[in-house]
């Protein structure tokens, strides 16, 4: 074995050895349901949340349908079967009354955010980001509400929205991801505990990036977030979602649903940094992340853009999609997915072209290291009436070491001859010559690899809002930096 290779192996071990930095448990009282799921649990949940009757019925309908469904198994992931009766479907921080200011928030909670590097106050003052922090399942602090309210923007927890804006919720909830859509979406519809709701009125450009931090905390609590964003005519909103979770031994389930509705001339930009606990080096523990994210460009000239950086979770099953219904609407998907150790990711997008002159762009970068498997799975569908549809897809994969896998499963279904569809995919490793070049310039192998990988992902990072881009690069560095031979 040459000197170089030995050196590289050392670096791989050093870095794949990085323990999850943000694994700690905050001790805080939560009021929890017993384990298990049945109609009573759902009714109880609905009652706790003071939901109207129609909402309870909506949940029950989803639950009844869920019972008839089977867990999908087509994704290229393997995991232990989830025992849905072994999950507590509700856990909320005990201090329940809604809070007006940060002073009322449990100090221990605030300390947790500080450890995560996102102190609310700091965030509030410095970055001008309104943070709707979701700790476990219930919103405990909402900031900048007033500024937003002036513009008529509604940014609140979905439970609040159900109570205060039932007409909007009724109209849009489940309109993009129906209760019956898939196994996990049905489950989410039945038991979602909380999430965010955003409504941007006609002609309003949201003055700040909206953001939520999710965090799983209570032991064995599945998280079922529900997010609904509606952008009315001629509006614009950029929404940020990011998450870290403490270390756990038993697998935790995360089945979120995100729905976006973009009306005429509006634009929604949705960015995610996902860093749930990925399991330890032996593949023990970690979050199961089975998420349904879908947006519809309902109006003409509307645009939806998904950007995601996926570094966490033991198993990821996630396909943020766009239904391009309005004429001239645009869908975008930018993704970096990193897997290490025993992580498995099956992620990608669906672009459904229905309107005329619709455009979609897919840029996906997959990086696999350790013994992980990373798959891109996507669909580009051009309907019969989607004249002049245009799609460009590029899916690049990078492998580090020969115990991991990188896969690409694109589906193209084209029913219109005016469509122009291109798909490209490449798989490669970090070039030895590239590393050599940088080494020769006095840059250590570790930094060189970091640089190259960052360059590989640049196209996607460029799409992220500034403060997220920084966090994303940090995450990438922690997950991977240097793990190349």
């Amino acid at each position: 074995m040459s000197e170089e290779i030995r050196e590289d192996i050392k670096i791989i071990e050093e870095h794949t050895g990085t323990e999850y930095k943000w694994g700690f448990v905050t001790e805080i009282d939560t009021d929890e349901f017993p384990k298990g799921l049945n109609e009573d649990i759902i009714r109880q949940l609905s009652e706790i949340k003071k939901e109207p009757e129609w909402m309870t019925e909506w949940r029950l309908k989803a639950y009844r349908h869920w019972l008839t469904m089977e867990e999908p198994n087509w994704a290229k992931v393997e995991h232990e079967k989830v025992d849905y009766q072994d999950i507590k479907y509700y856990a909320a921080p005990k201090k329940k009354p809604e809070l007006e200011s940060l002073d009322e928030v449990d100090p221990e909670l605030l300390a947790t955010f500080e450890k995560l590097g996102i102190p609310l106050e700091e965030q509030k003052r410095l970055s001008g980001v309104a943070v709707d922090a979701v700790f476990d399942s219930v919103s405990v602090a909402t900031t900048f509400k007033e500024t937003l309210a002036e513009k008529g923007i509604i940014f609140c927890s979905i439970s609040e929205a159900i109570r205060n804006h039932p007409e909007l919720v009724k109209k849009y909830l489940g309109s993009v991801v129906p209760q019956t859509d898939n196994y996990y979406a049905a489950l989410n519809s039945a038991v979602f505990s909380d999430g965010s709701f955003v409504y941007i009125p006609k002609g309003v450009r949201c003055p700040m990036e909206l953001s939520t931090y999710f965090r799983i905390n209570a032991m064995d609590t599945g998280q079922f977030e529900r997010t609904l964003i509606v952008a009315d005519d001629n509006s614009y909103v950029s929404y940020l979602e990011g998450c870290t979770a403490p270390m756990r031994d038993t697998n935790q389930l995360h089945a979120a649903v995100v729905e976006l509705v973009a009306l005429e001339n509006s634009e929604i930009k949705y960015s995610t940094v996902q860093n749930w606990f990925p399991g330890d080096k032996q593949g023990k523990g970690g979050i199961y992340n089975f998420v349904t994210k879908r947006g519809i460009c309902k109006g003409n000239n509307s645009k939806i853009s998904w950007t995601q950086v996926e570094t966490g979770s033991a198993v990821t099953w996630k396909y943020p999609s766009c239904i391009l219904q309005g004429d001239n609407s645009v869908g975008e998907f930018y993704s970096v997915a990193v897997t290490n150790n025993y992580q498995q990711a099956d992620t990608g997008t669906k672009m459904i072209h229905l309107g005329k002159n619709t455009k979609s762009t897919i840029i996906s970068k997959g990086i696999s290291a350790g013994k992980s498997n990373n798959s891109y799975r996507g669909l580009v569908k051009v309907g019969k009436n989607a004249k002049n549809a245009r799609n460009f897809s590029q899916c690049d994969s990078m492998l580090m070491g020969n115990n991991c896998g990188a896969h690409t499963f694109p589906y193209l279904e084209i029913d219109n001859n005016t469509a122009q569809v291109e798909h490209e995919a490449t798989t490669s490793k970090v070039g030895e010559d590239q590393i050599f070049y940088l080494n020769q310039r006095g840059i250590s192998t570790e930094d060189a690899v970091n640089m190259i990988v960052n360059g590989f992902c640049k196209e996607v990072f460029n799409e992220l809002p500034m403060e997220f881009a920084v966090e994303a690069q940090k995450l990438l560095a922690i997950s991977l930096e240097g793990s190349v031979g």
Partner: protein
Amino acid sequence: MSNSNIKKWYSDNFRQFEKLVESDSFNSLRKEALSKFELTEFPTKKDEEWKYTSISPILKHEFVPSPLSKKETSTISSIESFKIPNLDVHLLVFINGIYSKEFSNIGNLEEGIIIDSLFNQLKSNSDFINQYLSKKETIENSFSLLNTTFAYDGYVIYIPKNKIVNKPIHVLNIAADELSKPLIQPRNLIIAEQNSQAEIISEYVGKDKVENFTNIYTEISVDENANVRFYKVQNESDAAFHIDKTEIVQKDSSVFNHFSLSFGSKIARNDFNTKLDGENIELHLYGLYLGNDDQHIDHHTFIDHAKPNCESNELYKGILDDKAKGVFSGKILVNKIAQKTNAFQSNKSVLLSDEASIDAKPQLEIYADDVKCSHGATVGKLDEQAYFYIRSRGVPAEAARSMLIRAFVDDVISEINIEEFREKINHTIFEHLHREEF
């Protein structure tokens, strides 16, 4: 007709069929296949591999295994029109899947080389044949099991070590039965031993309106340093159904060129599975499909890079008009140990009409890090600028369109290195593009 009824139909036919073949050595495998066939369901659109192709039209008919159909319906007066003009070949002719001694013309062969029908070989050389037949690892489905159940005839090409076949081998399969609906099931075997070389043209044609179901199973072994070029032409009648499963295994340093040129049939489904079971192998897969009317043309290719240092190259091009539908699914698997693999795949389709459609699924599954793999797929219509340019030079609309199409397929056609054969394919493309609407 329901799925189970049609299965029963074939099982019942086997009883009669068995009387014909009872004595031969392959019969135990036939019976084994039959029992598996009876337990296997025909694939439906729910199966991932058959997601885009519905075979229910095939199951609606009761096809008669061709060895059982009456002799007098299987006549044909001349095969001249099917030959490749001006090309000297070893000619093997099968009428409705049965070897025709009358029309075949096999020239002088070097000692050891076998070019013959499976039927003859099973009679005269069964020990040898049984070493190779049905020995490849594969995932069986109802169609391959059906083929094995009724395995009767087909071609056998065996080229021993260090031998080169002096001229191209042309296998003509003609579906000519206009009275009954024949089930034609060629069972083919090609073995190219070390350092051997051959060029094979395997052609499936049909007389107009013959409603046949051709269900092919071909096994190809390309051993160390062997070089084989294999051209498959499918130009059956528009009423025909065509299913082809080809299993290929390549050994060290071999070179294999595979062409699939698909023009005919109502539903055509091709499965080409290649295992690169050695190092320094070179594989080229070329495909061309032209669909008109309501034709459905499906190609599934699978390349298994099992060992290091191999290269595969795949180029499939399609032109779809009217309501034709194309399907392309190409999968490249790179094993953990298959370092230094180069695998490239490209699928390009042109849709000529509003109602034509294509479903493409180019897939990569990669477990080794030091590889270069890529795939690309494009779908679009003919380049309007180029069309305008040609038209502005005074070229009539129809000719301009033909020119552009011919140019689009050129990178596949130009890889055909037998000039006379290339001419014939050019001619077939031309005919296909100038059907009644012009």
